[in-house]
């Protein structure tokens, strides 16, 4: 599993050769000064010995997407529409504009960043919404005085979307950011993949919707004879159980799969919701929470019989996990075996989440199990970003004179 991740990482990295480009800043008289020369710029120019010129001038690049920027119409902030009737007014004032996939991109342009050397902070903020693959300041882009413009390339379009939504028109170190998509930085391949992803996503979403609808129909009349056939689409491996079990299960399972079927990162409420539903914490039950005990006695005979019957002919699957949880709540389990089970389940869940990402035909059923303790961020993309940032910070910090904090003001002479 880990080797797979590493491979994935490598392939991604090789696609984006210049991993990140750093600009160096130095501080003089409390003001950030670019090392790089700005034509006709207000800023002073200072020279540092340990910066290489080609680092500072990343424009000449074989990828072709980092050329001199041009100002396009879709960068502008449109005028907000104020003539909407009440029922069409959203929570936020917005312009009249249609978003299509052509307008979206994993490349974002961030304008209005105060020119006080907060690039690292900006990228850290961006990385909250997903892994950042590349970034650089757009010096040639016309910016307001004392502000800078940055180009940020996310690994995924969804990250860029989230970043735009959360960062646009938000305050940042005393400035207000304007974030917009800049699809003109895409390569042909970027564009192609973007469209393909979108088409795939729509098809999957529509299929899921249809499936959900089918389930709803099933739920409305559970005792009908066709439950078995329709539920087959959802519970792929279940076929031999009796009708009685079926009806109970379909109603229960459809409840879970009405959550989005895409692999969802572990979310708190999700997790707890399932936990309470399925009584995976036996301690609380055994301590005498009554309502759980009552429902258990109702469902117990059906469940245990089904779990015994079905788990024998099923190797491993989401369904299996579900039933085993329920039976674990009923029977007494010694603490050691309980812990063992939990460990096994955790491993299983990790495997499943992997296969789900690649196979994705199977709906996520069952509780979100606690993630194996990772170093920090609980998310792979975030972790890669964190690593990137850490490396960047290391590099940046290795250069003297960088941080304002490091340069302590001269101690005043006392008279």
């Amino acid at each position, binding site marked *: 599993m880990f080797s797979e991740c590493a491979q994935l990482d490598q392939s991604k990295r090789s696609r984006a050769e210049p991993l990140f480009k750093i600009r160096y800043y130095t501080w003089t008289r409390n003001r950030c000064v670019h090392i790089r020369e700005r034509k006709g710029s207000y800023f002073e120019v200072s020279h540092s010995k340990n910066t290489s010129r080609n680092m500072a001038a990343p424009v000449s690049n074989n990828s072709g997407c980092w050329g001199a920027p041009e100002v396009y119409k879709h960068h502008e902030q449109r005028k907000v529409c104020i003539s909407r009737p009440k029922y069409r007014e959203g929570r936020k004032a917005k312009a*009249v504009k249609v978003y*299509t996939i*052509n307008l979206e991109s994993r490349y974002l342009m961030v304008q209005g960043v105060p020119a006080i050397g907060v690039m690292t902070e900006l990228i850290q903020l961006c990385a909250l919404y997903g892994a950042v693959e590349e970034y650089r300041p757009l010096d040639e882009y016309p910016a307001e005085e004392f502000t800078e413009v940055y180009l940020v390339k996310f690994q995924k379009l969804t990250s860029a979307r989230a970043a735009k939504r959360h960062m646009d028109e938000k305050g940042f170190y005393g400035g207000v950011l304007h974030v917009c998509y800049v699809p003109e930085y895409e390569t*042909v391949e970027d564009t192609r993949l973007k469209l393909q992803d979108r088409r795939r996503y729509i098809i999957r979403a529509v299929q899921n919707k249809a499936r959900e609808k089918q389930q709803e129909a099933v739920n409305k009349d559970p005792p009908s004879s066709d439950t078995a056939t329709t539920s087959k689409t959802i519970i792929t491996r279940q076929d031999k159980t009796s009708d009685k079990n079926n009806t109970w299960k379909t109603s229960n399972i459809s409840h879970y799969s009405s959550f989005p079927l895409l692999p969802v990162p572990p979310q708190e409420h999700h997790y707890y919701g399932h936990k309470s539903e399925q009584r995976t914490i036996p301690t609380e039950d055994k301590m005498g929470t009554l309502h759980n005990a009552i429902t258990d006695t109702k469902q117990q005979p059906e469940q245990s019989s089904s779990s015994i019957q079905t788990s024998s002919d099923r190797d491993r699957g989401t369904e299996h996990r579900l039933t085993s949880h329920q039976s674990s709540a009923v029977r007494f389990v010694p603490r050691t075996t309980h812990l063992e089970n939990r460990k096994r389940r955790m491993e299983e869940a990790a495997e499943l989440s992997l296969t789900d990402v690649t196979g994705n035909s199977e709906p996520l059923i069952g509780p979100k199990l606690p993630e194996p303790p990772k170093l920090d961020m609980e998310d792979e993309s975030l972790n890669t970003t964190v690593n990137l940032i850490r490396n960047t910070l290391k590099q940046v910090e290795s250069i003297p004179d960088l941080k304002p904090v490091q340069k302590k003001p001269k101690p005043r002479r006392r008279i």
Partner: protein
Amino acid sequence: MWKRGSSESSDRFEYLQTLVTEFQDTDSDEAKEQVLANLANFAYDPKNMEYLKELQVTDLFLDMLTEENDNFVEFGMGGLCNLSMDPECRDMILQSSGISLVTNRLSSRREETVLSAITILMNLTTASSRSEITDPAILQCMLRFSLSESPRLRNLAAVFLQDCCSEEQVARAEQQMQGQQTAVGIPLPKE
């Protein structure tokens, strides 16, 4: 859970219906533009696909392509671009002779409109519609776009030429272009 979902969805349907009704009833172009943009943006979310189909919004968008108001055309085209990702909507658009309506707007002066049009044509490509979409005239358009100054237009046209038609078709279109120089006259979007 699913109960709440279904009541929410019926609310959504009613809301969309209200939008369509306002679009049909109002005389104000401004309101029409706003509603049209609203509907086109709703079409981006696959959750709404079904309701929009039921309300026949595909035909509403297609009607906009023959309007004179450039905003109507742009928003209608954007809506179609969003809807045509869905196979069922694609078939509906194909049945309403969407290809010719969309193709006629490839000469629009607005880049956004042209970009949407190209994406729609790609989405509309099926085994049976391929011959119509790879018409030499359309390919010549795409060849011209692929030389455009705008990287977005250039890229999208390149994807079309690479994915939707064969190399021989492109070569043939290129030859015809050189022979007659007809496609040179196709104006490129300015805005």
